């Protein structure tokens, strides 16, 4: 074999992650199939989503083995999108209540 280069890991870890992604996807599908509602539905969907995203980025995209300089440069900015999410939740609630007050109930 040529000299070690790039990201070298045993094939087994990819197969394991692949299997886990199947299990987690089945889980999130079952949430819908079994008509789970309310907060349990939301927490399960988000949990499965974050676990899947984490496994893909960490192992398939090799972030687990990269130096922190790259990891922070790539992972931290998308986390700041959560602030944007917060702003838009306020914004859409405001729009919703304004519409209720001026367009739906009254005339």
């Amino acid at each position, binding site marked *: 074999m040529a000299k070690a280069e790039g990201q070298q890991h045993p094939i087994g870890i990819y197969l394991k992650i692949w299997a886990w992604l199947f299990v987690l996807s089945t889980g999130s599908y079952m949430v819908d*199939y079994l008509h789970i509602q309310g907060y349990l539905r939301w927490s399960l969907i988000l949990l499965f989503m974050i676990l899947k995203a984490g496994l*893909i980025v960490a192992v398939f995209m*090799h972030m687990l083995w*990269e*130096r922190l300089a*790259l990891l922070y*440069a790539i992972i931290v900015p998308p986390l700041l999108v959560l602030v944007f999410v917060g702003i838009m939740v306020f914004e859409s609630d405001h729009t*919703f209540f304004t519409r209720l007050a001026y367009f739906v109930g009254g005339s």
Partner: protein
Amino acid sequence: MAGSALTDTAHGVARPNGMSGFVSDWSSDQRAFKNVPWGKAMMWIFLLSDTFIFSCFLLSYMTVRMSTTVPWPNPSEIFALRIGGEDIPLILIAIMTFILISSSGTMAMAVNFGYRHDRVKSAVLMLVTALFGATFVGMQAFEWTKLIVDEGIRPWGNPYGAAQFGSSFFMITGFHGFHVSVGVVFLIITARKVLRGDFDRNTRGFFTSRKGNYEIVEIMGLYWHFVDLVWVFIFAVFYLW
């Protein structure tokens, strides 16, 4: 090796790990990503910008869905498929999800075999990945046809509820499907190069005229896994919400 250690900061010098490594990498007045080839760093930065684009799409979808006073169409029923006289909710989307995950698995192994210089296995796995990707796009075309022709869903309105459903759906899945299609094309190009042995013979690329190596397979893989990653979020917030 003391002499080379002074000039060659990318190799041969013991670098600290953890937080002090992070600080020294970024403050070293040299390149910040020490052991990452430039192509890979650039792909990561492109993916970061693409993340923001998809974030904006998903956020605008969230905003219109939360602010509308009209009931939102139930995705579980709209995307149901009648199999054997019974409506199975979201079944097509579930199959598409499994196909995309499988394509990510084969891609990860293609990268691995690429670094081992196993040209045939790497290229075949990439072609399998491309095939999965093409299947995904085909199923998406089927889904769009069903929604447009059978259920009368349009970007400006639909018979099931809020008009914003159609615009969000076609915009988000359309943009994602476009990413998958582009990925399939580049997978085929990269697989051809690997199979031909371009990266063992240092052949220059037809577009950049630069010599490539097997890092290109990993960079291709990063893009492909990203497409899978975006689907994870679309599946969760669009189809399951």
